């Protein structure tokens, strides 16, 4: 049952991530091409609930998706046992979540 849930979570988080990554990339191009300064960017994002939700969701989806893939890679390519692989992946998830949410707070807070 666990494997099936992980598999499902990985696909669903990919589904969520796909459009978010696209918007994120377009945003970067837009900001760079228009020569926006950090202040100008922060001016638009700070206090914006929409951007908070957008990047909040982004961070959560990434923190679910990437560690599941990492767990698979560790299990296939290293001598680590299943438990160690799962533990490392969970720690990685936590790091992604904390760093990501911290960044979101910094940008919209």
């Amino acid at each position, binding site marked *: *049952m666990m*494997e*099936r849930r992980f*598999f*499902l979570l990985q*696909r669903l988080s990919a589904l969520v991530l796909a459009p978010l990554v696209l918007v994120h990339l377009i945003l970067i191009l837009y900001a760079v091409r228009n020569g926006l300064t950090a202040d100008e960017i922060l001016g638009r994002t700070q206090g914006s609930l929409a951007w908070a939700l957008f990047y909040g969701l982004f961070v959560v989806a990434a923190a679910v998706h990437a560690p599941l893939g990492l767990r698979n890679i560790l*299990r*296939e390519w290293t001598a680590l046992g*299943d438990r160690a692989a799962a533990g490392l992946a969970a720690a990685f998830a936590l790091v992604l979540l904390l760093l990501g949410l911290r960044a979101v707070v910094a940008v919209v807070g």
Partner: protein
Amino acid sequence: MNSDHVGLLTVRVWRGREEGRFETYRVPARANQTVLDVVTEVQRSQEPALAYRFACRVGVCGSCAMTVNDRPRWTCRTHVARVREEGILTIEPLRNMPRIKDLACDLTPFFEKWQKAGGRHVATASRRDPLQKIDPRSKPRLAASAAIECINCAVCYSACDVVSWNAGYLGPAALNRAWTLVNDARHGARHETLDRAFADGGCASCHSQGNCTRHCPVELSPSESIAGLKRSALFGAPKLREPA
């Protein structure tokens, strides 16, 4: 027997078990000759102790598979002319299974995985019940029929790299079998089979690169069956319409 003899063929054959060596033999090359014919010729004329397996010789029983010039093949239906490289044939046992002797493998782990994947049919009716009606054009039946003609030869299992690095992986044949049952209205444990196919070492471990499909001698597509199982994780088991 030598009437159609057109020169000599060099054959390198694995002798031994996990430890062993290649022995080289020369046999008459014939115009119309399968790899199994060559092995038989070596065994009859030069190496009576050579161990190998076959039964039907016509591509039905699935017992003659070996590794021929690095690829798993059914040897009774593989013509030498199609696979020889510079006049040389190299014949080894299948990969991913314990070896018994020479070209014969122990298929026990292969078949144990069929059981593990929920491959045992569970009857929903007895012989006294009326025949269950199945619409041959329904989607689940088409999916099952597309995958059903497996001859249990283990060629796909031998071709699968995931099996080679993860001995716990159920492998393409067992999962292909599970997919036929998940689509079979007469199977009484469809959801259990799906659960087993999704357990650790199940279909989620497949990399979908299709080496199994590329080598299956009867042109089944285990990778497509596995994709079907994976889809079932998202959308649930295929919906069966009650037969009219």
